[in-house]
């Protein structure tokens, strides 16, 4: 017990081929901030109705993004020259507001706002058909590492939700956005952007789109991940896409860790 944890051999000995799955049957659903919440009623209410129906069939946790308020927060904070950890600490509050909004709309269907790390209450909620709602930003706070490039905190919301799913051994994450999936360029800016309906992580990494709909670090973390098998990106403005995605249909973009048989 006194050996160095920095020694490569010692570290390698703590690995094994398998890893325990804590809550493998739970689905993680992410509702985008800018893509869904900032559009208000017209985008959110149909999704609320879908979720209210789906929760009887599928155990799920919902993560929410912060949207345009997060961008505004980061713009002001960076202009003021706040340290990167200060910027990271601030943004979660804007997601909390969206969690309250969603909880207000879903409360009568059994939703509750859960502090993001209260994992050990999840079985209680899930077994009782409830819908836990969490914020997405990971709790790196003041300790956000200096980014490799650029000046934004690298550990964003998509990464945060990915890690939540991965550590709990979940298999599936569905990102509900306002685009039909992952494109080779941002379709909001380029009319000729091409949809990528399916890809494995390895295929994607060979030709990573420059403008990404999900955090770069999500793909980075996925490389060493053991549990998450499928990351799906769907257009939540189209009715029933979420229902189809939860049923296992290949709507939107389906990204898989391994090639499917």
């Amino acid at each position, binding site marked *: *017990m*006194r050996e*160095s*944890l*920095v*020694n490569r051999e*010692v*570290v390698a000995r*703590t*690995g*094994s081929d*398998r890893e*325990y799955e804590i809550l493998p049957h739970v689905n993680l659903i992410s509702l985008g901030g800018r893509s869904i919440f*900032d*559009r*208000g009623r*017209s985008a959110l209410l149909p999704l609320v109705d879908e979720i209210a129906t789906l929760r009887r069939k599928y155990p799920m946790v919902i993560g929410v993004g912060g949207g*345009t*308020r*997060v*961008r*505004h927060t*980061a*713009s*002001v904070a960076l202009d003021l*020259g*706040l*340290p*990167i*950890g*200060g910027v990271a600490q601030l943004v979660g509050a804007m997601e909390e507001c969206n969690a309250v909004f969603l909880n207000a709309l879903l409360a009568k269907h059994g939703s509750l706002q859960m502090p993001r*790390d209260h994992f050990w209450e999840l079985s209680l909620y899930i077994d009782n058909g409830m819908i836990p709602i969490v914020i997405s930003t*990971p*709790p*790196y*706070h*003041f*300790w*956000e*590492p*200096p*980014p*490799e490039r*650029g*000046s*934004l905190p690298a550990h*964003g919301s998509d990464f*945060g939700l990915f*890690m*939540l799913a991965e*550590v709990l051994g979940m298999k599936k994450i569905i990102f509900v956005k306002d685009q039909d999936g992952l494109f080779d360029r941002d379709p909001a800016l380029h009319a000729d952007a091409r949809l990528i309906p399916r890809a494995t992580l390895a295929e994607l990494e060979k030709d990573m789109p*420059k*403008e990404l*709909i999900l*955090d*770069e670090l999500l793909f*980075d*973390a996925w490389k*060493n991940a053991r549990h998450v098998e499928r990351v799906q990106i769907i257009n939540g*403005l189209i009715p029933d896409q979420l229902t189809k995605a939860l049923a296992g249909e290949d709507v939107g973009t389906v990204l898989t860790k391994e090639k499917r048989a």
Partner: protein
Amino acid sequence: MSSADQRQMSIASALEHATMTGSDIDFDYEPVAIMPETKVLKIGGQSIMDRGRAALFPLLEEIVVAKETYHLLLCCGGGTRARHIYAVASDLELPTGVLAATGAYVPRQNARMLQMLLAKHGGIFILDDDYVKLPLYFQMGCIPIATGMPPFAYWEKPGANGRIPANRTDAGVFLSAEFLGAPRAIFVKDEAGLFEDDPKKNPSAAHIPRISAAELLRLDLPDLAVERVVIDYLQRARFCKELQIINGLEKGMLTRALAGEDVGTIIHA
């Protein structure tokens, strides 16, 4: 801003249309150091705390004198009990995030121990959110004592090999110094810094007094007195450009390090 046509209610800002998912943003960013005078000290877990009274009490005497001159923030390492947690959790094949979350209990215990010993000299135990109260604590002559573990917990990324969390208390303490804008973090351990081999196993290993992070990475040592991610962070840091590792078992080393002397090893950006 009609919701009927599903338009976004958007706030105009420099990042309004940014993807926010990557590093493609060119932002004119000049960060300010928020508390650059703070001396951020890491008190080693295995190297100091686990040795008990013999190692710790002489250090406490130096700390009590030093706090009259400097704003000291003490951050604690974990040590042997943290290693035991990692061993049991790895054996149970639990994920890295669970190791990081449970490993955090030990440095917190150590911080509480240190607080009890320093209470009569103004030692106070602080949590992550209490960092915003550091100006008050320093003004009151207190010695704030925190865990060295960063709050990543379940969000700690799995590594390519093994299950040990990459970001432990060295990383946490370094990032504390970087956040506060301190130019140097001081790690109090039981070795005078870096050696070309583990001095505990090879007593003739050569001491390295000063080395750049890039050189250190080039050496690609099989073992190292500091977590590897810290070497990475050091190269990208805006403020904390130096990391000093000193031997806290040697009397007077901490006092000299606080006075700015280059004792031990300096790893620089």
